[in-house]
């Protein structure tokens, strides 16, 4: 069943069209990644899904609700971790979560919320004394306090150290395993690749790539690279290659096969392909290609 349905969504700020006809669907219990460069329209899209901004065109349904018209019901069933939102600096972590329980329909117990996000030892620390990563964990504690059916996470691990990031991934996976639908925006492509089962890449307010993570990556070429021997010209190689900074780079749908072909060819000629690297397509390749970062 579909938890989030976005169809031909449009939004302008002043004369600038931030979102231009975006469409995608997210299934129940799925972790979906919305990727794109800064200014691609990710946050504007998330804010329309969460009901903070009214779309100029197109339709949005979250849990079959209109985020603007059915805002009260939507708030009961969703959690939002905004990219930027303030805290009451003079309250402690425990006081903040306890206060938030007053604003939440069926909140988790305080101890559970702190434990879930690894903030138990910080319960008596004032928010202004927390590091950036700890504030993001508090953000997550507030967003998940009401056991939401749909969770919007806008850059959830920004500022976290590697361990906290990994813990956050575990939390997100755990919530998804319990049936929570997660829509995630992130700058960390590794994060998206590890967590999400499906993705959409936005560029200049439009979807430029969309689908299942595995299928989308399988459709992209991998790469074989090595230091080109002095006596060899790129045209001599048995597979098409270009030379970048003295390294031959071959794009291939099946990089393993391309590597075998190259090694056999080199062996027959007594050549050594130094620093050989074989790499399947990654989300980074897809992102750079789709979002046009290499332009």
């Amino acid at each position, binding site marked *: 069943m579909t938890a989030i349905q976005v169809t031909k969504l449009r939004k302008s*700020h002043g004369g600038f069209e931030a979102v231009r006809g975006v469409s995608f669907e997210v299934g129940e219990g799925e972790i979906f990644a919305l990727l794109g460069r800064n200014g691609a329209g990710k946050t504007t899209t998330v804010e329309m899904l*969460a009901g*903070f901004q009214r779309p100029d065109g197109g339709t949005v349904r979250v849990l079959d609700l209109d985020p603007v018209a059915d*805002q*009260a019901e939507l*708030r*009961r069933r969703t*959690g*939002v971790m*905004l990219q*930027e*939102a*303030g*805290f*009451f600096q*003079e*309250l402690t972590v425990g006081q903040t979560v306890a*206060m*938030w329980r*007053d*604003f*939440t*329909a069926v909140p988790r117990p305080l101890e559970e919320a702190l434990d879930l996000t690894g903030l138990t030892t910080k319960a008596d620390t004032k928010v202004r004394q927390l590091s950036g990563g700890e504030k993001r964990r508090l953000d997550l504690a*507030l*967003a998940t306090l009401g056991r939401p059916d749909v969770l919007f996470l806008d850059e959830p691990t920004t500022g976290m150290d590697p361990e906290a990031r990994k813990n956050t991934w575990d939390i997100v996976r755990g919530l998804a395993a319990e049936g929570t639908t997660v829509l995630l925006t992130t700058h960390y492509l590794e994060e998206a690749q590890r967590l999400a089962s499906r993705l959409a890449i936005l560029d200049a307010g439009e979807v430029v790539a969309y689908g299942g993570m595995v299928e989308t990556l399988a459709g992209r070429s991998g790469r074989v690279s090595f230091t080109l021997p002095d006596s060899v010209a790129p045209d001599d190689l048995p597979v098409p290659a270009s030379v970048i900074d003295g390294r031959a780079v071959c794009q291939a749908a099946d990089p393993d096969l391309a590597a075998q072909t190259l090694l056999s060819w080199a062996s027959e000629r007594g050549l050594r392909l130094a620093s050989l690297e074989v790499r399947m397509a990654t989300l980074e390749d897809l992102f750079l290609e789709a979002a046009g970062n290499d332009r």
Partner: protein
Amino acid sequence: MTGTAAAFRLSTRLFWLDRGVVFGTVVTPVVLCVGMPVLMGALRPDGVAGAVQTFVGGLAIVLSVSTFMSIVQALTARRDQLLLKRLRTTLLTERQILVGEISGQVVQTVALVAVCTLAVHLAADVPLPRNPLLYAVFVVAGTTVVAILGAAFTALVPRLELAAVMSMPFFLVAGVGAGAMGPFMEMMPTALRMVFAALPTDAVVTVARTTIASGTIAGDLRAALVPAIKLVVWGLIGIFALARWFRWEPRRS
């Protein structure tokens, strides 16, 4: 706990946690509203009459500092620090957030006015209002209207640093109009006096003056009619402006 009650509790708690705000919006106006009448009562030849005049004028200062300037400061800070944005992610509706904030300011100011009224009675012999109910109704209604106007005014404040500076003119105009800063009104042309008399704080000052002076209940009610109309009109203007222009987030640069 209802959403409005939760928002009220939050607003009140945050207010008392901020010592700078407490000093500026509680200590200063109370010192002015109580200290000046006591001083006037002791120094001026008309004694109690002078203290009464200064005290009712001081009510305009309490309303403008403890309510108007305080809510402008609080809401602008919460908007610029993206706290209002965060609150909107919760079950609280926009109306509950604003009503909680406004009612927090109203309760605090009404409590201050009650303290000041008792203090000047004990320290400067200013009579207690003959008609405490009418006095209380106008203090509550006037404070509410001023708080609504303050909340609406934040739409004009581009950033927190300018909140105090931009709300200062209201304090000066309300204080001068109420006679709290000396007998300036006696020197002003009639047209300008009418402008000052149209202020929402003047409605509270007028009814306070009436209920403290000798008179009858019927006379009090007649005197309260025009101030009541003023408060209704200002209240409607404030609610319209709040609904139309209130900003939940800082302007995008």
